[in-house]
C-alpha cells in the first residue's frame, strides 16, 4: 500500500503569489491534517479535515485555507505568500478524526518564498 503522498516535493514562489499543495492519504484513511514546520522547530497544526468537513483550525491567518475531496485527498492553499510562509508543509492521515494510534505523515512539501 502506498503511504501518504504529497506533491510537489519542492517549490519556489514569489512574495504575493498563491500556492496549492496536495495530499493523498493512505487508502481507507478518511482524516487528513496539515502541519507547518519552520526550519529548526517542531510542526505546528494548521487544519484537520474529516469526511470533507473542517474539524479544526490552528492559529493561522485566513490566507491559509484547505479542502478535502470525496476521495479523501486534500489541498492546502496559501494566498498572498509572505517570506515567513517558507517552511516544510506536512500532511498526515488517520482512519478517523481520533488518531490515538498516531498519524501517518507524508514526506512533505518544501515551500520557499523569495
Amino acid at each position, binding site marked *: 500500500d502506498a503511504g501518504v503522498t504529497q506533491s510537489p516535493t519542492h517549490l519556489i514562489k514569489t512574495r504575493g503569489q498563491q500556492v496549492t499543495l496536495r495530499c493523498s492519504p493512505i487508502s481507507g484513511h478518511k482524516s487528513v491534517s496539515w*502541519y507547518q514546520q519552520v526550519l*529548526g522547530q517542531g510542526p505546528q497544526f494548521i487544519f484537520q479535515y474529516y469526511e470533507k468537513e473542517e474539524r*479544526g483550525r490552528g492559529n493561522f491567518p485566513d490566507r491559509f485555507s484547505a479542502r478535502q475531496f470525496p476521495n479523501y485527498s486534500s489541498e492546502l492553499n496559501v494566498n498572498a505568500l509572505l517570506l515567513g510562509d517558507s517552511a516544510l508543509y506536512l500532511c498526515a492521515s488517520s482512519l478517523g478524526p481520533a488518531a*490515538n494510534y498516531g498519524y501517518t505523515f507524508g*514526506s512533505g512539501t518544501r515551500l520557499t518564498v523569495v
Partner: protein
Amino acid sequence: AQTVTQSQPEMSVQEAETVTLSCTYDTSENNYYLFWYKQPPSRQMILVIRQEAYKQQNATENRFSVNFQKAAKSFSLKISDSQLGDTAMYFCAFMKHAGGAQKLVFGQGTRLTINP
C-alpha cells in the same frame, strides 16, 4: 495551554550505546496520548512509540522504550543499542483535543547523532 518542552537541542553518542531523550509537557487533561516521532533527513515523520496516559506500564517497541512519569509530566525516550540509522531529529508530541479536532502539539525537537 498545552506545551511540550524538549530541553536537549542536540545529543551525540557512539554506536551501540544507550541514549535517553528528555521531554516534559503541561496539560490539565487526565486522559491523553503521548508520542515520540523520528524525522530523518528524508523529512518524513515516523512514529517511534506511543503511550496512553491511563496506562501505568511504560511502552516498549524493540530497542525503544519510554519512562512515563504522569505526576511529573515527564515522558523520556530511551534508545538501547543505538544504530547509525537512529540518527535523526526526534520530536516528543502530545495529542490535544481542540473542539471537534485532535491535533498534535510538538516539542522543539532533539537532534540525535549516532557516531560509528
